[in-house]
Structure formats: C-alpha cells, structure tokens
C-alpha cells in the first residue's frame, strides 16, 4: 500500500497531535486564564475582557498585605517540607526493609499499607481531631506533619520498594563484601540509584501536603496553610476572585518549579518496573 507523504507543516497534523493539543488546552487554559486574571483590576475581573487593561499587581499586594498570605505560605512550606522529608526518610528505610531484608509477614504489611493509603481522610478527621485536642496539638505544625506523614508513607514505601527491587542485588552484595554496613549500603549504593523513585515519591507527597485542605482546616483553624487561607478570602456576599487568583498563582509556584526541575526523574520513576531492564 502506498501512503501519501506530507510535506511542510502538514506533517505535524495527525490525530495524535490534535488530541494531545486539545487535552493540553483543556488542562492549561483555566490555569492560563487564572494567571492572566490575577493581574486584572476589580472592575474588569468579571467582564469578558481577555487581557487585563491596565496590568496591575494590586491583587498580589492585597493578598500578601491584607490577607497575610506570606504567613500561610511559610506555614505550608514548613508543614510540607517536614512531612516530605519524614516520608522520604522513613519510606526509604521501610521500602528497603520490605524489599530486601529477610522478614516475616511482608505481604500482610504491604496490604495493610495499601489499605491505609486508600482510607478517606473524612473518616478519620473526627477521631484525630479529638486526639489532637486532648494532647494539645491543635494549631501546631506537628498536628499536620504527623498525619500527613502517616497518610503519604504507604505510597512512598510502595514506590521506593519497587525501585529498590529493580537494583541488582549483586551491587549490595559487593558492598557487603567491601565492608559496608546495611545503612551505608543503602546510603552510598542503593539511594543514589533510586533517585528517580525518591523524586517521584517526594513530589507526590509534596503536592498532596501542599494542597491538603480538610485536616488543615480542622486541626489548624488559626495557624493556616495556603488552602485554608484561600478559603477565608472574601465573604458570603463577595468573592474577590482577583485576590484568590493571585494567591493561587503564588501557591502554584513551588510545585511548578519542582515538576519542571525533576520532570525527567518523575517520568522515569512512574514507569519504573514496567519493563525490567
């Protein structure tokens, strides 16, 4: 069968590029609209005008000065970074243990973790609230760091365990013969090779903690994270979308940076184990 060869820009048009472009537009347009609108003044935000006229940073100013988004960002950063660090630290050791160490009852542990990871947080928010109140942790960083770590650990352990399983055992055995302790083996030999897995687990955990709302609202009504602070902008009579958009844009920045910087690692982390090579 002969096929017609296309020349010039025609060769870029096929069902795959069209479908991809449409999907990307579907996802990206609202974000683009949000970014553009965050620079609009209050008079033009609810109109059909596409571009702001004039461009204004007033929304950003209001968000940071009036609504104290700087503090919310700091709170979110502390909670998220601490949780992610804990998840990666514990996840690495647990993942290595479950993947490599001789241990009884590995399977039940893995299943139990999987169950925890699909637990709806609404089911645990009330009992957790009572516990937090009893131990006096409400409105504290640890009130969020601890549950965030617990809820994100199973996924991280799964990802890291699979990653460790893909590293040839002989490398660790060489390490043992060379005189490396198990901890040194993990640190110097296993972890450097599992960086895509670490990035993937890290970014997923970071995003989950950064955007979490329910627990943050319940446990820390005054020490607010970004999602909670966003929900407090405006009143029941008025929604100042410009300010909300501006705050949302700022809230997006860390995640965008993380994904852009580590995108290669994340993609390879997600596809790890698909093909054993």
């Amino acid at each position, binding site marked *: 069968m002969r096929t017609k060869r296309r020349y010039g820009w025609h060769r870029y048009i096929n069902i795959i590029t069209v479908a991809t472009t449409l999907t990307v537009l579907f996802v990206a347009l609202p974000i683009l609209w949000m970014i553009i609108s965050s620079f609009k003044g209050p008079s033009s935000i609810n109109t059909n005008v596409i571009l702001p006229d004039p461009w204004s940073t007033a929304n950003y100013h209001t968000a940071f000065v009036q609504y104290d988004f700087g503090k919310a960002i700091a709170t979110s950063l502390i909670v998220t970074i601490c949780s992610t660090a804990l998840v990666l630290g514990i996840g690495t050791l647990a993942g290595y243990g479950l993947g490599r160490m001789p241990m009884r009852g590995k399977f039940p542990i893995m299943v139990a973790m999987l169950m925890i990871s699909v637990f709806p947080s609404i089911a645990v928010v009330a009992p957790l609230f009572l516990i937090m109140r009893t131990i006096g942790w409400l409105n504290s960083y640890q009130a969020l760091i601890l549950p965030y770590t617990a809820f994100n650990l199973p996924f991280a352990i799964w990802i890291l365990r699979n990653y460790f399983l893909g590293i040839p055992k002989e490398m660790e055995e*060489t390490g043992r013969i060379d*005189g490396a302790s198990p901890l040194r083996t993990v640190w110097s030999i296993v972890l450097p090779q599992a960086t895509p897995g670490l990035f993937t687990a890290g970014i997923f955990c970071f995003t989950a903690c950064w955007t979490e709302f329910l627990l943050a609202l319940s446990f820390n009504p005054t020490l607010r994270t970004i999602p909670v602070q966003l929900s407090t902008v405006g009143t029941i009579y008025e929604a100042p979308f410009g300010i909300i958009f501006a705050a949302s844009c700022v809230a997006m920045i860390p995640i965008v940076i993380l994904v852009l910087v580590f995108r290669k690692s994340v993609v390879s982390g997600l596809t790890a184990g698909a093909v054993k090579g």
Partner: protein
Amino acid sequence: MADVELEKVIKVYPNGFTAVHEVTLTVGDGEFVVLVGPSGCGKTTILRMIAGLEDITGGVIKIGEKVVNDLNPKERDIAMVFQNYALYPHMTVAENIGFALKLRKMPKDEIQRKVKEAAHILGLTEWLDRKPAQLSGGQRQRVAMGRAIVREPSVFLMDEPLSNLDAKLRVQMRSEVSRIQRQLGVATVYVTHDQTEAMTMGDRVAVLRDGYLQQYDNPQVLYDNPDNVFVAAFIGSPSMNLYEATLEPGATAVRIGSQTVQLTEQVRIARPALMRYAGRKVVVGLRPEHLPASTNGDGPELKGNVDLVEALGSELLVHFTIDAERVIAEGAHEEDAEDLLKSGEGVARVDPRASIKPGTTATFSVDVERMQFFDPDSDAAIRG
C-alpha cells in the same frame, strides 16, 4: 594470601532442596581453581558460601586455616567479581575501584595511588573519570576486576565474569584474567558453565553435577581419564562419543553396534578391571581426535555413515552415524544437543586432506589405547 578448604560442605535451602552435597575440596595458595558444571549444579552456591553471602548448612569452610563459617563477608578478606559486574553506576571508574578502600577509611592519597596502580595493571588509566555506562563490556569487566584486586584480598571469587562478553572478547579476557591472577598470585575460585573456559584457565577444575562433586583434578587428567560418564561427556568440545557396547569374552574385543573393535594387550594391562566385564555390557568412550581417518586399513577401525562434514581449516569435523546406542549423560549437553545425539551420532576429528563426503561411508581408525570404558550401571570409569 591464603588457601581455601571446603570440608563436607552442605547447603540445604529452607524449602528442603539440597543444593550442595558434602563437597570437599582444597584451593592451594595462588592456585586458580575453576568450578564447572551445568546450570543448577551448585557451583555458584559454593562460591557464595565461600564469600559468606550464603549460610552453610553443614561442614566447614576455612580460609587460611581459619574457620569462616560464621564470619561476615567483610571479615573473610575476599573479593568477588559478579557476572553482571555490579559496578556502581553513579560512581566513576576511580570511585568504583576505590570504594572498598574508602570504607576502610584509608587516606585519600593512598587510595588514589592504589587505584592508579590497579588501573595500570588493567589498562584502565585513561578511563578513570568515566562512569560505567560510558564503557564497553570488556572495560566494565576490567573495572570489576580492578575493584577486586585493589583490595589485595586473600582470595578472589569470580562468578561467571566473562559470560556477558561476546565470543571474541571472551577469549581475550580469558588470558587477561589468567595473566592478572598469576601476576598477583592470589588463590582464585572461578565459576563457569563453559568447559572451554574451565580447561583453559584452571590449574585444577572441579566438575559438579546436581550438587555433587564429580571429579577434581587438573584439566588434562579430566580430559584423559574422566572418572565417570558425566565428566567424559561434559569435558571436551566436541564432546566424547559414548556408546553402549559389549565386551567380548577375555576382553579381546568390544562390540559397538554391529561392528567389532579389537582390543590390544596394552588395553587389558592398563585396565585389569576390564576382565571382570568380559561378556558384559559396558559404555565405551572415544574422543573425536582418537578417530582419525583410516589410511592403510590395518588396526582397529569403525565405519560410519557420514552426515555432515565441517571444514575448520586445520581439521575436519566429521559427523557420522553408527548403529549403536549413544549414551547421553544428562545435563552434560544443552537440551537441544541431547535430542540430536539420541540417534547414534558421533563426531570424528580428521585430517583436512582426507576426502570424506557427506552421504558416504567413512572408515575411522580407532585409537583403542585411548578408549575409555565405563560401568553402564554406576557410570563410573573402569580402571585399575
């Protein structure tokens, strides 16, 4: 420097499978010993037990007079080279080679000096800053060797280190590994399933099958005087022609299929035990080179229908068929080859000038003094 001793070493896995049955062998100081056998024969398990990567169920392993049964790998003063090299991909060649020294907290300049020395021996000096991914298979193999030699261990353990290389490079690296081993004079245990590698590299070769040590001797003895049918079939390429046969009364001749081959007095003197088998069935073995093309017609001969002639330049490999039952030593050949062998096929190695054509009947002289005899029930060699 030290020697290695295995005394009645047993390995039973938790599922009850016995991988190694009471293996006893000694590796002398500076000796190059090869463990060879088909896959699943327990050779890698033995190596891993010497390394301390696998617990031993019974017996004693000594390295330099010291019992090491319960010592950690790092306390055994050994170095191991793995089949897949197990190089650390995130480290440069120099870091890979120097990693063990770094763990010993050796001063940096000392590490550098030793790494350079090892790299010099292995011809890796110009690659020291590269990562393993940027190296060829042969270079990676040498880095793995470098990592082992830099530690100056008492014993080298190598687990099929050449099997990932292509055929030509493998031959090169074979002599390279032997050269380095002799240069360093360290006791070495080398595992392979390739009998050619075993024969060319080992000072002594241990042939294993199903966890049992079949024979442990220098390569020439294994080749000339195999202890049993398995060793006879496993060692040598092309392998020994093994046929069911019947010894005539008085052991004056042996009947192979419909043909009779006269035995000389020397054969009976060399193997007095043959007389006990007079009139009984035996297994006879003939190496391909002990079946040269017959030129003058006197002396014992064997006729065969020629199926295929492979001209190798220096010799002809003549594949022929006779009407005798071929004896197969299970596991000594690849499975496909076993199927091919089932029909009385044999191979003779003859002079390239002999005019032998496929489809004809060829006559081969039989070097009866080199003929091997085995008990058909126990598979053991008939000697003494």
